[in-house]
């Protein structure tokens, strides 16, 4: 474990710059597509290998609510047939993927981490599920999440604790807990999550994988919600770009999705960051509580962008803590969820969610409307900041991962509100901007640390280019077995 903090080294002996692995379950998406192309591998081989490894690690990790090998094999065979007769559906065809348990996909229930949701198969697909299926992706199963995604750690009343592959004693983070753990172990190469206040970036940071929340409106988000963003968790930046390319775009069923061309994200991925103006803001101008190791590792990572040809300047984006904007929105969402559950079953609900819901009951419509109105101001502030800076870098989180089963670090350093250790992510849900977390190092005891990259609105391409440049310069290590 002692060399984990050195970027580019890997305890498990594998890094992406090394030759391709022999176990098909360890390939990334781009490697799989190449192997399908030259017919050295068939999607069915991959699915078999993944489920074999899954049977070993899943009892320890608990990433999946449900997985379906038989269904995955059928999809793999269909994909294999397409590859064989030259009718591949594109960059996702034959790639094993997972989706978070709050996204509807036909033939699976969507339990959302709750014991109170019906254990009933959905009969229709969310727009993103349709796009995945139409792209030929192989759905392995659905991943664990905190109950309705209300908190940033990886446990729920329905599925219990999901464990961090880098250290099974610490949390994966959440709410896309299973997706991040599965990404870390490469149980599937792309993991579709959702992010309402950090729920993709938080577990990506804790689990040492790449995770990205695109701009609000980039990907149709039905059933949707005020701060709800759909996005990928992956080991490689390229695989995330491939997913965004497939999922992005207007859907007439969801008018919150914008009809703005996304461009060719894969084509521009390796454009580099030469000349980019990058702002590094370790505390956003107001965050006091930041772990010293996290600060040191992220600061070093941020400064390394200068060596890649960007200018890096330490500067804050110029907004005050938007927590007063998030709070009425978050509490109201919690209450509208809980109010839909019969009172008699409230004892089955995560007590923390229930407590927030009770507060949400008392939020007035005017406070909610004020918060929504304030989001436009936050968006405009960052838009003006982006006239001077192409990208903003921050730590993804103020703390490394902490003990499982707790909502906050047990030492009390971050208090009892999980947003205190996750203060960097929600501002960009409120402001609608694209933001990613890239693995940028480890604590001395081997817990991953993430760097957040925030881009101008609808400029996923810039965020991906910077993440890809960083990945190329400082490839992050993987772990293939729980530690």
């Amino acid at each position: 474990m002692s060399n984990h903090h050195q970027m580019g080294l890997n305890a498990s002996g594998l890094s992406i710059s090394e030759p391709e692995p022999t176990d098909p379950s360890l390939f990334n998406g781009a490697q799989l597509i190449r192997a399908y192309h030259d017919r050295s591998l068939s999607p069915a081989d991959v699915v078999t290998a993944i489920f074999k490894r899954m049977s070993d690690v899943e009892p320890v990790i608990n990433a999946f609510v449900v997985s379906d090998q038989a269904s995955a094999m059928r999809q793999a065979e269909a994909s294999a047939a397409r590859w064989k007769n030259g009718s591949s559906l594109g960059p996702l065809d034959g790639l094993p993927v997972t989706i978070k348990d709050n996204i509807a996909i036909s033939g699976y229930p969507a339990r959302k981490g709750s014991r109170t949701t019906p254990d009933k198969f959905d009969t229709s697909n969310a727009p993103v599920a349709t796009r995945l299926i139409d792209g030929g992706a192989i759905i392995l199963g659905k991943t664990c999440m905190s109950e309705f995604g209300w908190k940033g750690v990886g446990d729920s009343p329905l599925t219990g604790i999901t464990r961090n592959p880098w250290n099974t004693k610490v949390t994966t983070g959440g709410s896309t807990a299973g997706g991040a753990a599965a990404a870390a172990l490469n149980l599937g190469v792309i993991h579709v999550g959702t992010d309402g206040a950090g729920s993709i970036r938080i577990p990506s940071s804790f689990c040492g994988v790449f995770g990205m929340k695109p701009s609000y409106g980039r990907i149709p988000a039905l059933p949707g919600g005020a701060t709800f963003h759909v996005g990928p968790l992956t080991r490689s930046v390229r695989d995330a770009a491939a997913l965004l390319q497939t999922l992005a775009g207007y859907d007439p069923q969801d008018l919150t999705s914008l009809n703005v061309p996304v461009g060719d994200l894969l084509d521009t991925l390796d454009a580099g960051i030469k000349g980019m103006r990058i702002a590094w803001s370790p505390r956003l101008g107001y965050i006091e509580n930041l772990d010293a190791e996290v600060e040191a590792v992220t600061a070093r990572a941020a400064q390394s962008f200068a060596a890649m040809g960007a200018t890096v300047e330490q500067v804050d984006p110029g907004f005050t803590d938007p927590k007063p904007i998030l709070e009425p929105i978050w509490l109201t969402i919690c209450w509208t969820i809980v109010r839909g559950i019969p009172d008699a079953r409230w004892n089955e609900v995560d007590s923390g969610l229930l407590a927030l819901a009770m507060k949400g009951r008392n939020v007035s419509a005017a406070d909610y409307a004020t918060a929504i109105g304030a989001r436009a101001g936050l968006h405009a502030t960052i838009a003006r900041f982006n006239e001077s800076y192409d990208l903003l870098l921050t730590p993804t989180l103020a703390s490394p991962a902490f003990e499982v089963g707790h909502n906050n670090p047990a030492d009390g350093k971050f208090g009892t509100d999980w947003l205190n250790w996750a203060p960097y992510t929600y501002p960009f849900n409120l402001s609608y901007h694209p933001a990613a977390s890239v693995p940028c190092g480890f604590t001395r005891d081997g817990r991953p640390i993430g760097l957040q990259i925030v881009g101008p609105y609808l400029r996923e391409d810039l965020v991906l280019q910077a993440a890809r440049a960083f990945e190329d310069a400082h490839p992050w290590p993987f772990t293939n077995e729980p530690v």
Partner: protein
Amino acid sequence: MDRNEWHKIDAARLGRAFRRGHISPVEVLEDVLRQCERVNPQINAVVALDETGARAAAKASEKRFAAGTPLGPLDGIPLTIKDNLLCRDMPATWGSSAYRHFIPSADELPVARIRDAGAVIFGKTNVPQFTLQGYTKNALFGATRNPWDLELTPGGSSGGAVAAVASGLGPVAIGTDGGGSIRRPAGYTNLLGLKPSVGRIARGNGFPEILYDLEVIGLIARTVEDLSLLYNELSGPDTQDRRSLADYAHGRDRNRQSRKHIRLMMPFAGFPLDEEIAAAIYTCASRFAKLDYQVDDDPAPFSIETFNEILDTVFSTGLTRIMQEHDGKVDLDDSLAQLYDRGIRRSAADYLTALNALWAFRNNADAIFGDYEVLMTPTAAAMPWSALEPYPKFIGGCRAEPRDHAIYTGFANVLGLPAISIPASRSPTSALPIGFQLVGRFGAEEKLLAMAREYESEWPWANAWPPEDMASGGNA
């Protein structure tokens, strides 16, 4: 041309006259200011006048024309801005004592755009307090009156804007529309009123958002050419306004397969409608049939009550939100006091439920259109009423609820769709103007403007002006 009648000339013709050197923006502005001095004491449309700033702007414009470098088709055109929009160094009261002394130092985004286009902003137009009502009266400035009959309201909340344009105080005006605030007043004053799709005209740096995204910048003009000029100048994205960044191609794509098929939705079942208005709308429907449109009398496939609930939630919450910013210490008239009373009782969960219903409607708006390209309705259910009353108490002989007169406009705000009010005809009994409304699919502004132009070329209205006795000071 009578040299004193420049204020009756539309913007497009003024622009041509400027370019040819027939007249200068300074002379036109002076004529408009004289007209303002004549008629404003009676109509009370303009509540803040900036003669110095306007003269400087007109002079600068004159120089540009002399140098052959005008900024565009609106350079030198005198116009007004509604008092809920921020113009630098002019009062912005929003019709409320809460902002009695507020003088912003910068233009909000659309105002900056029109100023950058060379327009000569000379006044701010009156509104009801916080622009939440369908008439135009407030405690600061009193009532604005309809130039067609000074006893009556020009409607609201853009009542000052339409009264100004109808009286020759600028050929065009800029206002807002959150539930029909541009369209109904336009219908009451023989003018065009356009409410674009959500986001089509970028917003920013203005008063706090009061009506979620229901309120958009709206435009008033006398002719379709002017309306198009104004729309072209103001529409377009800005990075500050996320909603403005959508590419509207999906709306345009659909409109290319022009089907010339109109759904006439009248009346909305269970709501009163003035008989003269109904008759005028049928006349317009038959006129579109003459223009080779297929017009089908096909009732609205939605319950207007549901829309009204959403509107009431958004309006009452918006008022409450603004009241909170002033610690509740703002005097309200009875009708606003009732709205506030409903607003303070609403929970965030109710509001979120209403917004979810709103988005469900938007996502399913295609179902309202079906095979139709455009929806047609009256602009208002009632003829203009007393300038001093917030709403008409009777419509078509029936007792009317406060929002009954306004039911035909708000659904387009909930749906975020573009809508235009076009002069239909004048009442056979009172000679008062009547408007009809066309509602298009998302992003279909150009289609609505094209239809208005087709209609205007056969049945023009712009030569009809309010009675001269008013303009000359006879009928106070």
